[in-house]
């Protein structure tokens, strides 16, 4: 197994070049405040990136120093040790040893430790210091330590470790000037001093812990009193009765906000995009180019931007839940239920959000540290009935299912059908989760270990930066793929040109594909018109409603009586039921595909997912058509 002996020698051979860019790595255990410090140092001058071939994400930022100099800071994943067993640890290890291809070996390290939990966090100091890089040991949450009656002789700790030590509160900003001083020194080429205490064998945790304890004793470390407010709040939030009640309230609040609360904002954004598109179109001459710009690019980009309010609201919520410490408690409460499906507590909030939209849900799986659990959650999230499926469901149900009361006036046949579709998606999700977790994504049940951080007030600064960061990631990374696909779909629906004009959709490439594919989709009870709709709905599921409206020459909305009648005449009940089932299971959403590619750092998982969902949708739609056709 790789430890860092080999790379220690490489430091000495490094040529002292002054003009190249300097990189400093931030290393620390989870919950030590790494990201807060990183945000404090870089502000908005940061970007998120993935190392090639790994799902681990790192953030790179520029820090402005005096005299116009600047230095790059890289925020590495939170780790307890450098033994490269998990992907997070491997990435951290490789970056620090300089074996990561994308990144030169850092010039220095900021080792950030939670000062309120120092005896345990000091364990990480042993392997990091043995790298021989100039290191600043940052004792974070120094304000908490002082308030709760803890103490440490930081000068003595610096002596013992042979590295400068800074008492810092990254959240409040106190002591951060010492970090800037250290960074300034780094650009001048400071060298590391060997530590005074002999470092322990870094692979042996009990020895490392004993070493940390001895360092703690020598530096008069007084552990702080237990966090009083955390104990009080846990007595409420983890109370056998009040706990689940609070949990339910939080869940309802999240669901309402992203499902209902985001609606008006999303509608406003949509209207703004449409009217600006029309205005923009009126400036261009009536041509295929205008159609490409307005119908292809503008509405393609619009179909992405329209998700933004939902994403921002969800991440505001998740930000508050995570930064305050409640998310860990929510995961604890949800764990038993999720464990039945082979998942874990942290999958709950992302899957709940998937009922609004799979895109923010998949982005929200970042809170799941276990990679296999995270991938499993990403793979099942699109089965949850998202709001884009609703217009399709409502149209088909209204066209084919007569309204009859089942349980009084409030629950009729149509509501039952809609509920049935929600249940169908949910069942597909949990059965897929079971399948994945018992085969390719198996984890041991005892791998669930959840640290409960003390409760803290979330800061506006950190919430704001998180929102800006998520928006950037979504718009830039997912946006480029979605834009490309939107243009392709426009080309399919509007070419070849006939006499310089775009043809009616049945004569377009999509129409030809729809006709050609008719033999493939006929067993499902679909005709070529539905075939065209399946192609255009890749842009977003609800687009099929508008497309069918165009083809039948009717108003393209769910409530359109003309469209409902046209469908009734053109589609068998079996075909209609099959269409509902197809939409329940198929991954008809390029935004989801793009975001899965981004979050899993490659095309492998989105390809597997798309194939699996399409095959499942096809098979179940086929069966549905057959079974329903027997009775109707």
């Amino acid at each position, binding site marked *: 197994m790789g430890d860092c002996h080999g790379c220690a020698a490489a430091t000495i051979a490094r040529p002292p070049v002054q003009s190249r860019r300097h990189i400093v790595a931030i290393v620390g255990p989870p919950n030590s405040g790494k990201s807060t410090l990183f945000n404090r140092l870089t502000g908005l001058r940061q970007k998120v990136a993935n190392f090639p071939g790994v799902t681990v994400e790192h953030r790179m930022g520029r820090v402005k120093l005096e005299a116009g100099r600047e230095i790059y800071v890289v925020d590495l994943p939170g780790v307890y040790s450098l033994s490269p067993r998990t992907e997070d640890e491997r990435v951290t290890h490789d970056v620090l040893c300089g074996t990561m291809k994308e990144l030169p070996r850092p010039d220095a390290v900021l080792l950030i430790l939670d000062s309120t939990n120092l005896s345990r966090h000091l364990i990480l100091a042993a392997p990091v210091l043995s790298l021989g890089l100039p290191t600043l040991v940052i004792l974070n949450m120094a304000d908490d330590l002082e308030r709760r009656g803890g103490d440490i002789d930081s000068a003595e700790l610096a002596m013992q470790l042979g590295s400068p030590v800074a008492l810092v509160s990254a959240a409040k900003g106190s002591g951060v000037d010492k970090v800037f001083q250290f960074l300034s020194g780094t650009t001048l080429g400071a060298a590391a001093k060997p530590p005074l205490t002999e470092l322990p064998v870094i692979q042996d945790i009990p020895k490392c812990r004993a070493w940390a304890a001895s360092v703690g004793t020598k530096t008069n470390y007084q552990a702080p009193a237990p966090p009083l407010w955390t104990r009080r709040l*846990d007595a409420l939030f983890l109370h056998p009765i009040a706990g689940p009640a609070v949990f339910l309230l939080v869940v309802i609040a999240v669901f309402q906000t992203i499902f209902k609360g985001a609606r008006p904002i999303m509608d406003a954004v949509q209207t703004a995009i449409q009217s600006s598109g029309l205005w923009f179109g009126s400036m261009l001459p009536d041509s295929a180019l205008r159609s490409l710009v307005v119908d292809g690019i503008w509405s393609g980009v619009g179909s992405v931007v329209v998700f933004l309010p939902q994403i921002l609201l969800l991440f505001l919520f998740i930000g508050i839940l995570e930064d305050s410490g409640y998310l860990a408690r929510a995961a604890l409460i949800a764990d038993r239920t999720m464990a039945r499906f082979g998942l874990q507590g942290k999958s709950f909030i992302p899957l709940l959000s998937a009922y609004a939209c799979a895109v923010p849900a998949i982005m929200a799986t970042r809170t799941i540290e276990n990679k296999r659990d995270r991938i499993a959650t990403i793979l099942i999230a699109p089965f949850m009935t998202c709001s884009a499926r609703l217009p399709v469901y409502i149209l088909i149900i209204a066209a084919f299912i007569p309204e009859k009361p089942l349980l009084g006036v409030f629950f009729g046949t149509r509501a039952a059908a809609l509920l049935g579709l929600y249940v169908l998606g949910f069942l597909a999700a949990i059965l897929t989760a079971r399948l994945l977790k018992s085969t390719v994504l198996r984890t041991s*049940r005892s791998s669930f*270990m959840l640290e409960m951080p003390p409760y803290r007030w979330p800061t506006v600064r950190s919430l704001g930066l998180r929102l800006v960061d998520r928006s950037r990631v979504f718009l830039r990374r997912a946006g480029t793929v979605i834009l490309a696909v939107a243009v392709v779909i426009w080309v399919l629906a509007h070419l070849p040109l006939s006499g310089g004009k775009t043809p009616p959709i049945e004569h377009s490439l999509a129409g030809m594909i729809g006709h050609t594919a008719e033999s493939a989709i006929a067993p499902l009870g679909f005709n070529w018109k539905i075939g065209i709709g399946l192609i255009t709905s890749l842009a977003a599921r609800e687009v099929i409603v508008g497309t069918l409206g165009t083809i039948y020459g009717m108003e393209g909305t769910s409530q359109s009586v003309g469209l409902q009648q046209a469908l009734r005449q053109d589609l068998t009940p079996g075909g209609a039921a099959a269409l509902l089932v197809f939409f329940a299971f198929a991954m008809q959403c390029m935004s989801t595909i793009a975001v899965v590619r981004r979050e899993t750092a490659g095309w492998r998982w989105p390809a597997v997912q798309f194939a699996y969902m399409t095959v499942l949708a096809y098979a179940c739609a086929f069966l549905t058509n057959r079974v329903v056709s027997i009775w109707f």
Partner: protein
Amino acid sequence: MQTSFKKKPKAPKRNPGARNLTELKHGESGIIERLDLPEEDSRRLMELGFLPGHVVTPGHSAPGGDPRVFRVDGSEVALRRETALKLILR
């Protein structure tokens, strides 16, 4: 400490006096003797503070008592019941 005891992959007869984490009553503390878990899981637990010789105290739990939060080495960590069963006390 019985270090030789740890080396055996599975002791056929369990020490009848050996208790595990799930047997601790509310407010009662215990000292960890060993971790009967695969290498990877026990390493992660040790990094979180579940080391032989450390004091553990059970705390709140999810409804139904599983998973439960344990206080150990200055932190609070939630474990599922099947994990807690494998942490043997002195």
